[in-house]
């Protein structure tokens, strides 16, 4: 993550404390209004920019198609929450997104820029599919092994980038990205070879390059609540996120990771082995993304078999969630839910005559809108403290 956001995080967490202690009034206010209004300003900014994004999307719907914006909105809500069984599906969809996001958050906190989650998800799902279809161990052990295989696959794929970073000093921004584009033809190849992933039922295979249908043992069980089937994967994702949040906030390792991201040089002075820790953080992020691929496959959010185009932007979206949550794991949970809502809601869009790609537009606009308020606040606070410093100096 960049310095600016990190400093912003530090700043935000600092300000209320200072106010509560009744320290210098200038710290929060500069020369301006009372700090009691601050939460209102922040909330107002967020509301305004999100509304702005929604208005732009509505204008697009009205101008570019003959649909009405209200229809689109109700369709999205119906598809994601209101229709029978919808919110269970939304939670199931949120699971892989959250898994990808929590891995990315940890690696970003360690100062890495891993943007290859899409490929890591894909490779993870390939490993998971191979184990699920070919291993044939009895009972529930299949699904556990298959998720583990997914994590190993994703971790190995990220490990390539981690190794290149460690031993050849290649920036991981680029390698993770290039590896993603290599993973696409790789899955196509795997799906065309019957000794790898292709369906062994030749009749089906000749129609399409698809993987074999997973045996029912290899599917994650669902939990049925009020007529909604919630996949176990969601609880795995939630549990992992909470565990990682605890790790970051309460353990030595978490402090080391945070220090490494905030100031690598200082971290090394304090005895943090930066090379080893960043390598493992990147591999760990890949492993969670790979596990997300496994959850995607065995949880039923994307069908019951591996097909071409399988990862379906789950990796990219997970990364966006991580970045938008500004590297706070607990914020990523609701964020993942919103992204999942857009996904499940988009299946209801067809009835309104508006193309599904509209949800991509809405999503991207929301992402941009969520970027603006913290940036504005940061610039404002920066200016205020500079002004205050100048007054002091004279």
């Amino acid at each position, binding site marked *: 993550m960049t310095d600016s956001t990190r400093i912003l995080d530090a700043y935000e967490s600092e300000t209320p404390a200072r106010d509560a202690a009744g320290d210098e009034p200038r710290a929060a206010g500069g020369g301006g209004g009372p700090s009691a209004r601050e939460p209102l300003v922040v909330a107002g900014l967020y509301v305004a920019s999100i509304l702005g994004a929604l208005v732009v999307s509505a204008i*697009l719907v009205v101008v570019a198609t003959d649909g009405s914006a209200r229809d689109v909105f109700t369709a999205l809500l119906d598809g994601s929450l209101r229709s029978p069984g919808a919110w269970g599906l939304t939670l199931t969809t949120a699971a892989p997104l959250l898994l990808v996001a929590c891995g990315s958050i940890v690696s970003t906190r360690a100062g890495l820029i891993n943007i290859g989650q899409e490929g890591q998800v894909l490779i993870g799902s390939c490993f998971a599919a191979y184990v699920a279809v070919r291993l044939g161990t009895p009972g529930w052990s299949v699904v556990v092994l298959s998720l583990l295989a997914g994590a190993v696959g994703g971790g190995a794929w990220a490990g390539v980038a981690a190794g290149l970073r460690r031993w050849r000093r290649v920036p991981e*921004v680029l390698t993770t990205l290039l590896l993603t584009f290599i993973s696409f033809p790789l899955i196509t*190849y795997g799906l065309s070879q019957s000794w790898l992933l292709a369906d062994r039922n030749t009749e089906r295979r000749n129609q399409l390059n698809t993987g074999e249908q997973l045996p029912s043992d290899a599917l994650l069980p669902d939990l049925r609540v009020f007529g909604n089937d919630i996949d176990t994967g969601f609880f795995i994702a939630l549990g992992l996120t909470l565990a990682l949040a605890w790790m970051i906030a309460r353990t030595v390792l978490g402090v080391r990771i945070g220090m490494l991201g905030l100031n690598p040089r200082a971290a090394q002075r304090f005895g943090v082995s930066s090379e080893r820790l960043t390598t493992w953080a990147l591999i760990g992020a890949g492993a969670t993304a790979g596990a997300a691929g496994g959850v995607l496959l065995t949880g039923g959010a994307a069908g019951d078999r591996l097909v071409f185009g399988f990862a379906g932007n789950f990796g990219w979206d997970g990364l966006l969630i991580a970045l938008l949550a500004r590297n706070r794991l607990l914020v990523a949970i609701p964020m993942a839910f919103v992204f999942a809502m857009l996904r499940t809601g988009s299946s209801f869009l067809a009835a309104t005559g508006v193309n599904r790609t509209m949800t991509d537009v809405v999503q*991207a606009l929301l992402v941009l809108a969520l970027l603006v308020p*913290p940036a504005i606040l940061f610039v404002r606070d920066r200016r205020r403290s500079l002004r205050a410093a100048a007054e002091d100096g004279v």
Partner: protein
Amino acid sequence: MDFFHALGDIFSAEALYISTFQLGVLFAFAAGGEWVAERAGTLNISVEGMLLAGAFGAVVGNHLVANSAAGLLVGALFGLAVGALQANLSHRLTANEFVVGLALNVLVLGLTAFLMTSFDIGGARASTWTILLLSEIPLVGEALFARPWPGYLVYSLVPLLWLLVYRTRWGLEVRAVGEDPQAADVSGIHVNARRRQAVYLVGLTSGIGGAFFVLGQVGSFQSGMINGRGFIVLAAVIFGGWTLRGTMTGCALFGLVEALTIATSVQGYRIDPFILDAAPYAVALAVVLLFAARVRQPRALAVPFVRGLT
């Protein structure tokens, strides 16, 4: 041997050099601008979106005025618009440049796909200008001197960029900003303004590159047409070690790799499509593996600048 026979076949066909040039132009425009931006210390991964916006702009402009020059212009403006968003969000508002870049890539991809299904905008193609005599040169004549007219712009791009970066005050300031923003700031250079301007430049050139891809190569707009080439551009800049000459060599190399994958399948050699699809990215990966450690990147690359910090 069979293998060398095949290689001879492929390398003696004009088609190889033609597609190398075509793809090279796409890469060169985008990478030229991106090189300037990276010298200014900003790594913008929205090149992908800029190229796609440029390609979309080309069909829109051609649809509005029915003229390929208009297509090129609108393409450049669309690219510039993406650049303007990227620049102002990340170097005025200090939002994370990678987040902005990713979001813009998604936005452009979604928006163009959405608009394409909503409007029927048709295709666009630029006329070919053939230069007498020169185009008769065997093997590479047609590839270099009988091209769709926007392709010739690439011959002026390189000297212009060189002059801009190495022989103007602006270029000096851009390089200073990329090396040591604090020092540049102290000496009175507006760091973030230079970075914004550099991003406008990459938006403009990438827009032209994307527009050329439509006008000179594909002839119509497809949603997946850029397909990660914007990221190859980033690899080309690293390959070039942040020099103009190296970056352009990288563009030619990546153009050649992609042209080779096209040529082998066109000439009927049965190579697994998996290898062909992966080749450009695998080569890019190998190239950064070999070169990244040997060259020195701009010291403030991808480090945001906020006055008074550090």
